[in-house]
């Protein structure tokens, strides 16, 4: 019954967004009501309708800010992906790299980036670069950790097979470890893209004259809660788009993996 089957599949695809939209509508309705009833003071949380008004009024300007922030996120994320995969490979291949570098990475990871911020401003100024750096710093670690595990999770005999084919470390990496690590790499990319968003924003918090993070901070400073929530809407929407892109890339790259076959525990009955 292929027609019924594809029919079901399609219903599945549509139902996902519908479900979300339904819960979202409910949530917003409850929020609007609370605002109108005065349970949510406007200086804390404005009503959705006010936010929508403000959203429409500021659309053009905000789109410009969003564009800049998107560029920062994309640059930081891509650099982090490339850097983390390369470093993970070095760590897996060369023990000394791990010993010398790893503790520093952990320290770098746990030092609150906001505390680094002022130094970054002084050294790097208000330019594009420090925001990219922040997005990079936040996104880097999860990718590296998951890639390391992914690269190491390889059956010894598969490596032997490649070695018998004359593959060196690079060959093993390219033909075996990297594709094998992809499913888990994508898991970390999903985490990393959200952190790259946060990173770019934190970078803008620390010092910027434009971008969504800047808008957020200045709305905060002038207690303009409506603008603040408009910027949160933009930020969330933007992050969802980025997240969706990563998920789409994942679908393309690791459709072969068992986690994507959708047969889990469903023996056809």
């Amino acid at each position, binding site marked *: 019954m292929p027609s019924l089957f594809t029919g079901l599949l399609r219903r599945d695809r549509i139902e996902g967004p519908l479900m979300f939209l339904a819960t979202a509508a409910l949530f917003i309705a409850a929020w609007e009501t609370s605002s109108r009833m005065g349970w949510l003071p406007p200086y804390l949380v404005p009503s959705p309708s006010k936010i929508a008004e403000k959203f429409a009024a500021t659309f053009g300007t905000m789109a410009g800010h969003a564009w800049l922030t998107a560029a920062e996120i994309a640059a930081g994320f891509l650099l982090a992906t490339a850097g983390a995969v390369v470093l993970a490979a070095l760590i897996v291949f060369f023990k000394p790299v791990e010993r010398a570098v790893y503790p520093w990475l952990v320290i770098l990871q746990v030092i609150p980036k906001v505390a680094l911020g002022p130094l970054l401003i*002084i050294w790097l100024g208000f330019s594009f670069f420090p925001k990219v750096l922040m997005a990079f710093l936040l996104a880097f670690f999860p990718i590296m950790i998951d890639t390391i595990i992914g690269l190491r999770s390889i059956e010894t005999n598969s490596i032997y097979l490649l070695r018998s084919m004359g593959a060196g470390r690079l060959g093993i990496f390219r033909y075996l470890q990297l594709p094998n690590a992809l499913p888990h790499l994508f898991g970390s990319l999903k985490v990393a893209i959200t952190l790259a968003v946060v990173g770019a924003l934190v970078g803008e918090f620390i010092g910027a004259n434009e971008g969504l993070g800047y*808008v957020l901070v200045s709305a905060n400073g002038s*207690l303009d809660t*409506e603008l603040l929530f408009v910027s949160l809407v933009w930020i969330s929407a933007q992050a969802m788009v980025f997240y969706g892109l990563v998920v789409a890339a994942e679908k393309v790259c690791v459709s072969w993996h068992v986690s994507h076959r959708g047969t889990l525990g469903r023996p056809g009955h």
Partner: protein
Amino acid sequence: QDKVRVRMDWTTLGYHAPFYYGVAKGIYARHGLDVQVDEGKGSASVAQLAAAGSDDFGFADATTVAQLAGRGLPAKVVMGVLRATTVALFYADGRGIKTPADMRGRSVSLCPSDAISVYQPAYFKSLGIAPGDVKNLSVDCSIKYAVVAQGKADAVMTYATAGKPLLQKVGIANPGLFRAGPDFYLPSHGIVAADSLIKAKPDLIRRFVAATAQAWTEAMKDPDGAVAATVAARPLLKGQEQTLKDTFVAALDYVDTPATKGKPFGWQSPDDWQKALGILREYAGLNKDLKPEAVYTNDFIAAP
């Protein structure tokens, strides 16, 4: 025309309006200056950026500049703008607070990343409040007013220039203010410039100071025009005109101290500074050997 960059202490606030006004009205241009007004993220980094030469001038908290100068920052205050003390305690009305003595047992919200919290003990002392008499509530700067509105605190330590309109914005209709006692003085905002700039381009500084003085004097007479110029430069502030105007006007009370009355705009009183350095030494660990000349100068103030 000389290209000049001046950085404000924070994202745009009401008392930044005169700078935008000066640009919009061509006051700076008439002094041969092509000024770009940038926003900043705190007085410390603004002073550091000026000292490093990244910016030409900064509009920063003068006490912060003094503290950094005590650690060797090669920059000083070349012009006092808001010269009165703006450290202030605002309290919510209708909660039985009339005099400083009523503060006993109450909670005060403050934001540790404001420089203010350091001077709080000295400030309270000038009001006759002992440090143990009030409870401090340290919060992020963005919510120090909201916690008062929520009733989690009854008063807030903040800048006198901003306190009232922002408290009104969160629904406190008539906030009261305890001004510091006479023995408590700290200057508020001024223009900071690097020592190297002072040495290299005294004329540029002189012109900038003169133009800024003129911009402020004219803006004080035309608050609506100043706010309009600000919003024109920062379109995101559309809709915030009233708040901007209120905070700007509130700031005007703090332009002068008794000691600067009748002196040219921008002139800083050595007596005032003497008092301020004393407080900084006692409460903020300021380098005891720091000379006033390393902190400020009146060399660039034009004679009246």
